[in-house]
């Protein structure tokens, strides 16, 4: 067993883990943060995307021990003070989900796209950037709309915060 210490959704966590434990297993099984999903075993589907030190990663591609001393944010950690994150609201408003299984990974990837590419995203950029996330329900049509709308809302949110 190996000891890991990291910050998950703002909380400090220390645990002893089998060295082969994946970050996604650590989140789901040790911390019971079951919003991060597993949809494949080849790092293709993106259902397990979380943010590691502010960047999107597939939590099935790294070991928990590699996340030692890191800051991890999961889908459970992005709504603040009971208010949905603008990207979460956009997915609901634009019907960007059906079964909900790929949704946490989609939302975490979408926020990362905005962080990297800005808030004014055209359709082709969004489609290309979603390369690492599979959805079998929506045909992506409404996910693309949701990401575009969520990106615009994320740009507005800091302005609102500044005004308050």
């Amino acid at each position, binding site marked *: 067993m190996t000891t890991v210490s990291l910050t998950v959704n703002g909380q400090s966590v220390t645990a002893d883990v*089998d060295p*082969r434990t994946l970050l996604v297993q650590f989140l*789901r099984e040790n911390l*019971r*943060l*079951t*919003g*991060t*999903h*597993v*949809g*494949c*075993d*080849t790092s*293709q*589907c993106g*259902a397990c995307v979380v943010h590691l030190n502010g960047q999107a990663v597939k939590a099935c591609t790294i070991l928990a021990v590699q996340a030692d001393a890191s800051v991890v944010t*999961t*889908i*459970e950690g992005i*709504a603040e003070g009971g208010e*949905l994150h603008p990207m*979460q*609201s956009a*997915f*609901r*408003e634009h*019907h960007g*989900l*059906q*079964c*909900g*299984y*790929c*949704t*946490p990974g989609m*939302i975490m990837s979408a926020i990362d796209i905005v962080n990297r590419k800005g808030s004014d995203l055209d*359709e082709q950029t*969004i*489609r*290309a950037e*979603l*390369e690492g*996330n*599979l*959805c*079998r*329900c*929506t*045909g*992506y*049509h*409404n*996910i*693309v709309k949701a990401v575009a709308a969520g990106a615009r809302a994320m740009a507005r949110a800091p302005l609102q915060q500044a005004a308050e």
Partner: protein
Amino acid sequence: MTATGIGAPVRRKEDQRFVTGQGRYVDDFNRPGQAFAYFLRSPHAHAAIRSIDTGPATIMPGVVAVLTGDNLAADGIGGLICGWMIHSKDGSPMKAGPHPALAQGKVRYVGDHVAVVIAETLAQAKDAAEAIVVDYEVLPAIVDTAEAAKASVQVHDVAPDNTVFNWHLGNREETEAAFARARHVTRIDLVNNRLVPNPIEPRAALGEYDPGTDTYTLYTTSQNPHVARLVLSAFIGVAPEHKLRVIAPDVGGGFGSKIFIYAEETVCVWAAKKVRRPVKWTSDRSEAFLADAHGRDHVTHAEMATDENGRIIGLRVHTTANLGAYLSTFASSVPTYLYAPLLSGQYDIPAIYCEVDAVYTNTAPVDAYRGAGRPEATFVVERLVEKTARELGQDPAEFRRRNYITQFPHQTPVIMTYDTGDYAASLDKALDLADYRNFQQRKQESARRGKLRGIGFSSYIEACGIAPSQAVGSLGAGVGLWESAEVRVNPTGSVEVLTGSHSHGQGHETTFAQLVSDRLGIPIDQVSIVHGDTDKVQFGMGTYGSRSGAVGMSAIAKALDKVIAKGKKVAAHVLEASEGDIEFKDGKFGVAGTDKALGFGEVALQAYIAHKFSGQDLEPGLKEGAFYDPTNFTFPAGVHICEVEIDPDTGVTRIDRWTAVDDFGVIINPMIVEGQVHGGIAQGVGQALLEGAVYDQGGQLVTASFNDYCMPRAIDLPSFQVGMTVTPCPSNPLGIKGCGEAGAIAAPPAVINAITDALGHEDIAMPATPQAVWRAAQKARMPMAAE
């Protein structure tokens, strides 16, 4: 229409938990003392098992038990079943080979279940599985659909020529006569490629046994938990029906693959009692590829006869359907009664004859996948119609229009009675939205850039709202296909609806609440939808075949009518009026012609406190149930138009435009319906351009991961233009037809018709990969050179 009633694009109630990571799927459940199951699967497509030595595995760290087919047999656990009896042309019953949950003497496909290890952790279970020693006598395998009946390899003893049945439907003599007098006959050979359903949530099962009460609980990724309970108890015999609770919580997509009752959930329930521990299994994606039931896999030759006026006068079809190594739960119904009855399409075809030979092979079982038989039928009809129009030199849209059925009801030669529709209306709207009149200009513009542009039509029909119980019983179904609902009104006026339908992405918590809100005049926040738990919902047939709206919601509507009728009785007592004078309108029970009225909540309270009537006059309480059995299938239909642009140098096909105009009857929530259309099209485009399950000749699945099996990604698809026309369904109280499978049915022929139009070459197989399209483009350019 109110803001939350029928027809309103209400945002989904269930989304709050899904967007915050609070959904609860089977793998999110953990029970105290839980152990983990890992299945040792056959690495061979076909082998006799000489012996299994579990000894080395049992002493591995953390191992609780290692169980094999011998243990199952010793406990009297039965095999998995196929619930639909098909008889061959000669009257003989289909040949169903044994299907044990853990292999007994033989394995028949790569991924077949050999043994299960139960251990403290999943990692320990996997480690121990590697220590099981299996002595296999490897046998030759047969995987090819068209060759199976001729092969020397025999998958099951009961089927000497690997033939499950030779079945037929239609009027043979009249069809032969039609072809004899035809002016023109169009012929086509088609392969409907094998697909892997791949819901993003893999299957999972968590079995638990309580020795105190001698009861079992199974959490499972099911589209129909009551059917699972029935099969597990009555046929497989792992637990008595009244002592088995099956819970299907949030389920991450199904597309048919979670209808069936598989080996893994059988073993988890059985083993939970055996080891006196909760036993959990979660499929990984590789296992899903190997052992989830696959879809499609047809090889077809079909011919269409037309007369001198360009009217279709006959259709004959021969299909070989690969059912895999075992008959899955509804496998036999898919290439028969869910297939051939749709071969009339939207067309008035007086003579149709279809023969289907179903075969065993050493491949994963094949069963219903989104559309189930209807996409296969539509692919045959719409490829043939397109090819016929081209051979006759006619516009494909106008050729279709000339042959459309226009009078309803319409009896086809293949069982179905179409109740209503307006196919030309959908075609006109689709042509308009697709800007068909300017297609040639766009084609020329593409040509200037060295690209090939093509347009493809698909006038699909499907039969859904499955199904009238008596009718399907006469065709071999082992079950009735009605649906149940119970409406429980609480004393505070809030409402719980218990439904036998199951939502795994369809949004029932919202749409069903819209119906209740519409009928009772209460806010949708006052309505809870309860599903997916056999201890709560008395019985139900589940969700597949676009039946939740047409059948499931009709049951709810029926129960709501009873609630309103009972409410009138209560109101009559309270308002001291005669029951006949009570009207229910806008959420109020009022006395006709007066201003005396009670709100719905007041009547609910009065029903429970029962102060205003005696128990002899009226039973207290407000709770009603209903079973709704449909009187006909429903017939959604529409026109999809696909426009592609092909780069002849690379063979890459880009979908430039997609237009869908569908007639789903009355629509409860257009936002959700459009979402279903989008998702269906994506799966159909996946089949046409990207997806294909491939076994090598030895029976190894070479497309067994998302690295090897090409799932549609966002970049592969365009945005879709979706329109609607509406002819209400006359056979159910809500006028609903259903929308879940339309896109997956319509899309493949639309894509292939567009590609063949662009290339000027008819011979292209699905998936039309860049390589396949490039080769076809070369053939079209230089017919001799590419041979």
